[in-house]
């Protein structure tokens, strides 16, 4: 009996988490039993073990490799690996897209800092975070470590761009990579809601929202019509970045029945010269532009940018689908509402009759 007690004590001590100030945290994490299954997203995985859940993040590109993982303990646990802080209260985010996921799971109040708040669309999520007085983390286009520390975050959700940076190793704050934007379909991107559900201990809620949106999306999907050709984007100087045929945007258009004539072997954008894109523009029935422009941007303004546009069939027939990222919530709410994005495109291309577009509009004079 005495031996058993000693063994139990040793095991208990061994599993205690050592907190940032060196004291032993003895509170028990009440992780749900609900087990999430990942069906579409390829950028993260969840593995369940008896004492903990392991969340792994990986790159989808051989060109830009990165990986990350974090342990979500079911009970007190000592580990050499990165452990999600017990009783997660404050989350700092590098992207407003992260906040959209958190908001969907009713956790906007946990956001304590965000990078580049001024670039956020002025939507309801913006109003919420401004009302709560969160910290601006960015200074001169990069994360200011001092501001990050001062935000009192328990976890920093970040892009993978700086994943090996030494800057974050100098502070005692766990970071976690979020790369939902690399997924190839809107549904796969939406499935990152489960990732957030997992770290927020709201797995069941995340799963039910995901299933609901996914089902709504799938009922809308159209078959591709090869006559419904589409062109994407606008040039940056002399280069025109077209989305890969395997990309999220291309798949959204494909699900709306549009035909995107660009062969792709990987997820990387296709950089073509402006003149090559003009040639393609002459053959496309629709033109989808997701860009930041002044609020009252019109078809005339578009033609002012480049007179050749007035020759495009899409411009002549006023079939330019425009999403102004400076004023719409495309990169925030849009990520968790792919069914609305799809509906917008279907409506604007005449495939459904009744809908009030939220993210896209047809450009007019």
């Amino acid at each position, binding site marked *: 009996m005495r031996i058993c007690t000693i063994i139990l004590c040793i095991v208990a001590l061994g599993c205690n988490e050592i907190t940032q100030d060196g004291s032993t945290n003895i509170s028990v994490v009440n992780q749900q039993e609900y087990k999430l299954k990942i069906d579409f997203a390829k950028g993260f995985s969840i593995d369940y073990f008896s004492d903990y859940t392991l969340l792994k993040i990986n790159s989808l590109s051989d060109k830009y490799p990165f990986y990350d993982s974090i342990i979500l303990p079911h009970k007190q646990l000592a580990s050499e690996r990165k452990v999600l802080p017990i009783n997660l209260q404050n989350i700092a985010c590098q992207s407003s897209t992260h906040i959209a996921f958190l908001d969907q799971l009713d956790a906007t109040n946990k956001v304590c800092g965000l990078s580049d708040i001024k670039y956020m669309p002025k939507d309801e999520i913006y109003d919420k975070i401004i009302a709560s007085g969160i910290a601006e983390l960015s200074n001169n286009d990069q994360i200011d470590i001092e501001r990050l520390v001062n935000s009192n975050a328990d976890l920093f959700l970040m892009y993978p761009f700086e994943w090996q940076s030494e800057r974050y190793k100098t502070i005692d704050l766990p970071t976690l990579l979020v790369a939902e934007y690399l997924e190839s379909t809107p549904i796969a991107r939406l499935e990152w809601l489960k990732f957030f559900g997992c770290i927020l201990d709201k797995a069941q809620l995340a799963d039910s929202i995901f299933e609901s949106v996914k089902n709504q999306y799938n009922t809308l999907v159209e078959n591709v019509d090869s006559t419904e050709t589409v062109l994407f984007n606008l040039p940056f100087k002399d*280069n025109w970045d077209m989305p890969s045929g395997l990309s999220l945007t291309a798949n959204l258009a494909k699900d709306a029945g549009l035909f995107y004539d660009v062969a792709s072997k990987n997820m990387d954008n296709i950089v073509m010269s402006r003149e090559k894109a003009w040639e393609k523009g002459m053959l496309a029935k629709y033109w989808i532009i997701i860009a*930041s422009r002044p609020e009252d941007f019109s078809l005339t303004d578009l033609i002012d940018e480049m007179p050749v546009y007035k*020759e495009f069939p899409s411009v002549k027939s006023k079939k330019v689908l425009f999403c102004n990222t400076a004023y719409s919530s495309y990169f925030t709410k849009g990520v968790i509402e792919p069914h609305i994005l799809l509906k917008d495109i279907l409506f604007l291309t005449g495939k459904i009759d009744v809908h009030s577009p939220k993210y896209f509009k047809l450009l007019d004079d």
Partner: protein
Amino acid sequence: MFIHQSILNYWMTKTRDIYILIGIGLMTMLFFGLSLKIGEVKLSYEDIWQLLNGGEAANKSWSYILDSRLYRALVAILSGGALAVSGLILQVFFRNPLAGPGVLGISSGASLGVAIVVLGGVSLQGFTGYVTTVFSGLVGALLILLLLLLVSKYIKDAVTLLVLGLMLSYFTSAILNVLYQWASVESTREFVMWGLGSFEGLNRVQFLIFSLLISLGIMGSLWLIKPLNGLALGTEYATSMGINIKFVNWIIILITGVLTAIVTVFCGPIGFIGIAVPQLTRIITKSRNHLLIIPFTFILGSFLALTADMTIRVLGNNIPLNTATALIGAPIIIWTIFKMNRSGM
């Protein structure tokens, strides 16, 4: 016999210089022709000829593509020539082979003028936007030049004046960074795109304004031939030639300011051409007569700018214009510094 030999040498040198000038001119024309052909969309010379004669093409975009290539090449020719001539005049005026619109902060002054307008929310698109920006860029460039002129009365040392010009560049860059803080996303995007520098993107109207102003500046520089010949030998010599130095100073400020500001406003800040080309001219030609040096510098500047632009296009438009001009210009400037060091300047 001695006099006869020197006259012979003079004419031989002059003839040699004219042949070189014609050679570079022909090369520029060849590159101009090639630049209409080079691009991701393959246009045959038959297509180009047909389109230039107002014919129809198989794809409607081709006429726009040809227009775009044509304007881009012409803008490169005019910009390169204008910056080179501006640099030449400044080098004679400040009696410093390392002077140039970029080094003395004149381009930065023009950039600041553009920044105030663009980051203030005025779009570069449209006629009004362009006119406002051109005016603002011009004011910025002229203010820096006036400041330099004022300071040069008290600071005679050439190197000190160059350092002062560099400091002015840093100062204007610092103001630009401050302006960024208040700018909107769209304005910042537009300014960043402009700042990368490029000869492309001008439409017909913009090109007409651009070419008109540059032509006026270049014609004005031809009026400076005699004063520059005098100034090259010193202010006292120039005065003895009956040149009104004060008036010439103002004309020099106006011409170099206009040439630099117009190129900077329309094409973005472009480095190295303004300082390197006059040096290259002095390497190639031994003439000290600006009747030859000015056209020589203009054509050489045009040729190098066109070469830089073609380099960019051959490499798939993946390198910024200033990288290409630096690859060509920096070695010439380094060579000049070594030469200055050897001659104890």
